């Protein structure tokens, strides 16, 4: 048996073996070492038991409860279809004010007050 083969498996190697990922050459050590084999089999048994644990689900309506607390940044496009326009973003400042949308009720003048005709 080579020196490497004679070395006991490390905890990481035992985990790899239990998960079926230990290189075959290294796994040969288990055929020669009863102590490592016992530890490895105990570890594998525990893994198999833990992995069977179920994933619990929150109650129905969980998504809605979360969504009630989430602030969604409204896009410019979305804001124009939002029924009350309360979350419409401030338009980028520019020399000319933004034109009101066709569906929005707005008091924004079409031209600046000091515009000359």
């Amino acid at each position, binding site marked *: 048996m080579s020196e490497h083969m004679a070395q006991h498996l490390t*905890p*990481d190697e035992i985990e790899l073996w239990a998960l079926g990922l230990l290189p075959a050459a290294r796994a040969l050590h288990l055929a020669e070492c009863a102590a490592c084999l016992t530890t490895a089999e*105990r*570890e594998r048994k*525990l*893994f198999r*038991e*833990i*992995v*069977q*644990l*179920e*994933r*619990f*689900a*929150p*109650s129905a309506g*969980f*998504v809605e*409860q*979360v*969504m009630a*607390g*989430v*602030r*969604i*940044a*409204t*896009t*410019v*496009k*979305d804001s124009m279809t939002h029924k009350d326009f309360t979350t419409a*973003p401030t338009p*980028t400042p520019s020399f000319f004010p933004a034109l009101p949308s066709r569906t929005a009720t707005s008091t924004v003048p079409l031209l600046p007050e000091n515009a000359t005709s």
Partner: protein
Amino acid sequence: MLRTYDRFVAPPRDTATSNAGDGVIGAKDRPSNLTGASDQDVVASAVRGHEAAFRELVRRYERPVFSLLYRMVRDRALAEDLAQETFIKVLNGLKSYRPEFKFSSWIFKVANNVAIDQIRKRGVDTVSMDGAPDARTPDARAASALQLRGQGESPLQEVEARELGSAIERAIGRLRPEYRSCIVLRHVEGHSYEEISEMLDLPLGTVKTYIHRARNELRGLLEDRRA
């Protein structure tokens, strides 16, 4: 306690919302396109303001996040509150998420911190799976207890599976909170040691030590049951 998410969170910036991505993924009228999208793409869509993308993120992570929290605090109602808090924190902070890190790492990190804070507030290290310790009536205690189902096999196998599951859950509940989150993230959720190290802000060696010790303790607790 203030916790840092520096590695996950980008510095704040003034980002104007844009409709540049409309019609790609995450459009409100095309939620089915989200199912195959990567977390990063769904997050990007949510940042652009698509509600369906927010819902998709909740759907993807509600069970794993809730399961972790349920196993950490062993009280269904409390776990739901904490899960809700986790999602709201994460979803309201999406603009600061750094896509070079896994979204799952970020959300589990927030969930774990929320759970640890709660456990510290309550001042208990280990928790009962028989219901909330502060429940005032037997009904309230039963309602908050960990609910275990059988595996749908023969009645005898179902009973045995339920008993084993119950014993494992009980043993996990007796671990220190740090060991508990590590063992659940590793063996129930299947994360790598590196990911867990990132999620819990712990050195890799510490994570390995915690998990090895946790497994030794679990084996001991389960062998006591079998003896």
